[in-house]
C-alpha cells in the first residue's frame, strides 16, 4: 500500500513539474540568469509548493503516526554545518551549468535524449560517490 502511495506521489510530482515548465532546462536557466530575459516561473513554483506544504504539514505532523507507516521520518538536525553549505554550493554550480536538478532530470528521461541519460548517469555516480566516501548520516 505504501508502495502505491509513493508511486502516485512520484507521478503527481512529475506532472506538477511538467505543468509548471520545470522539466525544461532553458526555463530554469532563464530564471537563474538575472542578466538575461528573466523568467520568474521557478519562484512561483517554489512558492506554491512550499506554501501549501507550510499550510498543511503542521496538521499532518501533529498526528501520532502517518497513515501507513509506524513513524514520521523527518530530519531532526538543526545544526548548520560546513557539509550543508559546501554541498549546497556545489549543487548550485551543477544546477546553474545545465539547468537540471534531480527531479526534472529523472522526469526528462522520458524525452528519450542521450544528453539526459548522460546527466542522470553522472548524477547517480555523484550520489554513489557520496555514499562511498561518507558514512550514512543518521
Amino acid at each position, binding site marked *: 500500500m505504501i*508502495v*502505491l502511495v509513493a508511486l*502516485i506521489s*512520484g507521478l*503527481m*510530482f*512529475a*506532472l*506538477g513539474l511538467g505543468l*509548471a*515548465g520545470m*522539466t*525544461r532546462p532553458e526555463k530554469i536557466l*532563464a530564471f537563474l540568469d538575472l*542578466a*538575461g530575459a*528573466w523568467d520568474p*516561473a521557478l519562484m512561483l513554483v517554489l512558492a*506554491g*509548493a*512550499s*506554501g*501549501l*506544504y*507550510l499550510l498543511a*504539514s503542521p496538521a*499532518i505532523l501533529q498526528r501520532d503516526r502517518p497513515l*501507513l507507516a509506524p513513524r514520521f*521520518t523527518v530530519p531532526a538536525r538543526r545544526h548548520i554545518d560546513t*557539509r*550543508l*553549505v559546501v*554541498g*549546497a*554550493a*556545489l549543487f*548550485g*554550480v*551543477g*544546477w*546553474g*551549468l545545465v539547468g*537540471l*536538478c*534531480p*527531479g526534472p*532530470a529523472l*522526469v*526528462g*528521461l*522520458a*524525452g528519450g535524449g542521450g544528453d*539526459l541519460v548522460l546527466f542522470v*548517469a553522472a548524477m*547517480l*555516480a*555523484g*550520489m554513489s560517490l*557520496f555514499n562511498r566516501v561518507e558514512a550514512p*548520516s543518521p
Partner: protein
Amino acid sequence: MATSSLPFALLGGLLIGAAALLLLAAAGRIAGISGIVGGALRRPAGDLAWRLAFVLGLLVGGAVLRVLSPETLPKSLPQSGPVIVLAGLLVGFGARLGGGCTSGHGVCGLGRRSLRSLTAVVTFMTTAFATAYLARHALGGSA
C-alpha cells in the same frame, strides 16, 4: 511567453506540494528526490520498495508528459558532453553532501520552516545565479 506560463507555474507548484504532502501523510517521509534516490543507492539497501516506487512514479509521469505535451521534455542539451557530466556529478554529490536538493530543502524544508533548509536554498541559489551568469555571459557559453 514567459508571463503567460505563470498561472501554470503556480498550479504546477501546488500539485508538487500536494504530492509531497501525500507522501508525508501516508508514509511519513520527506519528498526529497536526492534523498530518496541516494538512499536507494546505499548499501545495504534498507527501505528500497517505496523509494523505487516513487522514482517509477516520476518516470511514468515523464511518459505521460511525453504523450500529452512532448514539448515539455528536453530532447537534448546545448552544453558539451564534459560539461553535462561535470554538472551531473556536482548535482548528485552536492545534493547528498548538503542533505537535499530543490525538492527536499526547497519545497519540504522551507515548508517546515527549517533554518538548515533556508541556508541551503540561499546558498545553492547564490552559486547557481553566479554560475548561470558566468556560463552564459562572461564565458560566452551556450545561451
